[in-house]
């Protein structure tokens, strides 16, 4: 096992155990700015961990970032880890990030679906859902991005437990979703939520469950445009952007719809690389460039959030 983060490879994929050990070393080595919070237990009783980046204060407005809600999307966990390292490295050096952290906290949940992620390493690399089971139901797992309350059970989700987009028996039935809802609701001052998926190079905002535009449509549209411009400037990867239902398809019970309906105006969902050769099996050589470009987009969204308090 790694004894410190210095020998941890940010350009490789890692197991759940390696990531959780990295989190412990990372928090120990950067205890002045990072702490670890356990917000719950997964269905199979794994810890659900959140990193808190804070330079002090209390009850500061905050930004939430989650990666890995779909377990086979490995590039998202790897990008989350790289961004965590970037934040501690650049605080005090990058004026934009420094201003953000001097006024806001950042919460990062890197392995949002720990059971599913462990399963992609142990049994099935292409597993997507969590690992919940119910008596009398043969198939395993709920799609954690169809289990949120807003629009639950609507179009673009499936009531068939064997489907990859099974929404679960009732809203927030899954401990991994319920833990986030409880945490964000208790915090009460999350001002931006960024949920990271892969793949297909998209940056999207609510709604997914309906074609109806959100009331902040214009602002979110222009902010998304700025963010994908910043992302493009890193490595020339082009993203499309817009609301989920008009850019991709109608999908109900998703994270960002819940976030928006619970007062989080700046709610975005990323679909990171692949550009069309590897799908979910993006080679590790693309981790760093993907993370670099994604950081530029996230930094743009966070800066806008800081400059437009509400």
């Amino acid at each position, binding site marked *: 096992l790694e004894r410190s983060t210095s020998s941890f490879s940010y350009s490789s*994929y890692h197991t759940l155990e390696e990531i959780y050990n990295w989190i412990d070393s990372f928090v120990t080595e950067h205890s002045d700015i990072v702490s670890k919070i356990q917000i719950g237990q997964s269905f199979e009783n794994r810890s659900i961990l959140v990193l808190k980046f804070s330079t002090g204060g209390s009850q500061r407005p905050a930004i939430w970032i989650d990666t890995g809600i779909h377990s086979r999307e490995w590039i998202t966990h790897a990008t989350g880890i790289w961004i965590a390292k970037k934040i501690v490295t650049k605080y005090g050096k990058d004026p934009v990030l420094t201003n953000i952290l001097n006024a806001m906290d950042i919460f990062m949940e890197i392995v949002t679906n720990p059971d599913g992620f462990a399963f992609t390493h142990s049994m099935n690399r292409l597993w997507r859902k969590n690992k919940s089971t119910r008596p009398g139901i043969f198939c395993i797992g709920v799609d954690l991005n169809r289990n949120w309350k807003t629009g639950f059970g609507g179009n673009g989700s499936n009531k068939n437990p064997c489907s990859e987009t099974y929404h679960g028996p009732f809203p927030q039935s899954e401990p991994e979703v319920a833990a986030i809802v409880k945490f964000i609701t208790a915090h009460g001052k999350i001002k931006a939520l960024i949920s990271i998926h892969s793949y297909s190079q998209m940056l999207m905002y609510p709604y997914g469950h309906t074609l109806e535009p959100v009331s902040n449509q214009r602002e979110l549209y222009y902010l998304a445009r700025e963010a994908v411009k910043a992302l493009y400037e890193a490595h020339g990867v082009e993203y499309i952007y817009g609301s989920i239902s008009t850019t991709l398809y109608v999908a109900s019970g998703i994270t960002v719809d819940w976030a928006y309906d619970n007062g989080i105006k700046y709610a975005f969902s990323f679909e990171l690389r692949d550009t069309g050769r590897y799908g979910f099996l993006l080679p590790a050589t693309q981790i760093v460039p993907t993370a670099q470009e994604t950081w530029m987009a996230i930094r743009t969204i966070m800066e806008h959030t800081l400059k437009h308090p509400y």
Partner: protein
Amino acid sequence: QMNFTGDQVLRILAKDEEQLSLLRKLEGMKPQKVDFWRGPARPSLPVDMRVPFSELKNVKSYLESHGLDYSVMIKDIQVLLDEEREAMAKSRR
């Protein structure tokens, strides 16, 4: 570990909504014929689906019989998985 030897990922560029709905039909077929990596969304966006080796012939003839153009994005998933696992082991070493 599940083995995906011979499984392929096909990329389809549907021309219109009708072709998209033909693809959506595949999802519900039993036994499971496809696992959508990029689901049928809109004609301007590609659809990627993993097809188990055992279903490849059926699915390709279904696509061809309905005039759905496709390309093979990943020829053998297990090859990429083995490379991924080897890269992780190498990094760990």
